[in-house]
């Protein structure tokens, strides 16, 4: 009896030791995939969703499933644990049918969509704290400021100045500065403005 217990103990200890040793110098990367049955490839090698341990460096994560568009993310894995989200969008009736017929997959899909939206919102707030003050309207300016994603730079924000006159746009710019935001560091679109410099006929309107 005792020898069997000892062997089991040695096997368990060896397994734990092997696991710990094999993770030395590697970073914990949690891969969230939806649908859950999609196949993950890390640098073209098959992998699995959930926790992976990788050496610091640049990796390409690709998830594939029939009926869905491939999801690909290039991640610079550092020394701190991080997560990677891969959401495959259905691009055929087959993909949509799969989600409809598998409530668990649909739930996972919706959860990951919501998780990604939350992360993006948090990232945007971190990059531009001014958005906690938005939307903002100044009737005297006059101007309104709201925000949306910066399509040229994921995770960044575009401020949209509208309902304004030239004086209003000047006041909006001053308001943005007053909130501690440097206009050089954020994309600002003046939606009412058509430049007379480049738009023929806008000078004498």
């Amino acid at each position: 009896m005792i020898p069997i217990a000892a062997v089991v103990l040695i096997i368990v200890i060896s397994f734990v030791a092997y696991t710990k040793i094999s993770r030395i110098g590697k970073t914990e990367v949690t891969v969230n995939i939806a649908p859950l049955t999609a196949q993950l490839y890390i640098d073209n090698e098959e992998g699995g969703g959930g926790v992976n341990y990788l050496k610091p460096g640049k990796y390409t994560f690709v998830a594939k499933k029939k009926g869905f568009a491939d999801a690909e993310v290039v991640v610079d894995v550092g020394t701190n644990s991080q997560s990677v989200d891969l959401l495959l969008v259905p691009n055929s009736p087959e993909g949509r049918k799969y989600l409809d017929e598998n409530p668990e997959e649909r739930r996972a899909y919706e959860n990951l969509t919501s998780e990604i939206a939350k992360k993006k919102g948090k990232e945007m707030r971190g990059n531009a704290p001014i958005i906690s003050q938005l939307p903002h309207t100044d009737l005297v300016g006059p101007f309104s400021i709201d925000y949306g994603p910066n399509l040229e730079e994921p995770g960044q924000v575009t401020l949209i100045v509208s309902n304004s006159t030239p004086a209003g746009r000047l006041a909006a710019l001053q308001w943005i500065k007053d909130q501690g935001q440097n206009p050089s560091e954020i994309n600002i679109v003046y939606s009412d403005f058509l430049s007379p410099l480049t738009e023929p006929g806008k000078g004498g309107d």
Partner: protein
Amino acid sequence: MRRLIFFGVAIFLSAIAVYSFMVLRGSYVELVIDYKNVSKVSIYELGDQQHGDGKKDKPETDSGIVLKTSGEATRLKKGLSYIVYYNGAPGYENNELVIPNLNSDKRLVIYPYLSRDELSRRLVSETPAIHQALKQKFPNIGLYTISPGQLYWMGEWYGTTLIYQGPFSPNRDTLRVVLEKKDGVWLVRTDPAYISLSRFSYPEVPFKILDGVNRLVVPEVTKPKPGGAVIRS
């Protein structure tokens, strides 16, 4: 026996001396500064209260180290922060740079930009070519007054404001524009010229140039007043 004790004490003292030397040596790091177009470089230790990014007041005490030649190595206490002041040669700017927490040997290069006076002097001769480049790029430039603007760095970057002077328009905003001189030709780098310039819209323009142009003050006489009228002098 006495000889043995004497020998042991000698070895012990030698070990202490070597250890002290190593500790002392390890508490210093080497800073090498290469420079060009600079007349004087001096290094000062920064007090705890002076750490940060803001402009520092030059210490009043004359305790700084003045470098005699470019490439000269200086030994400085490890782990402290330092400020390096440099006076540009005639035509070049004076400036300073902070070295926070100097923990290992470091090599710095100081090539100062042109001074504000020198850039202003050069702007006079560059203005016709700059205006020509703007006219070529924007046929409607006649609706605007081109402010004198400013050259930056070595005179290869230029920024200015375009102040609307055309007939009444709901789009009579003052615009900002950046040009770069490449191979002797001025090129507009912020097309379209815009009310404010962001690093995302014009990634090819150095951020410091964009930021400088965003901070250019629009001449007071042409600022629109709330309500919309353009004040003309």
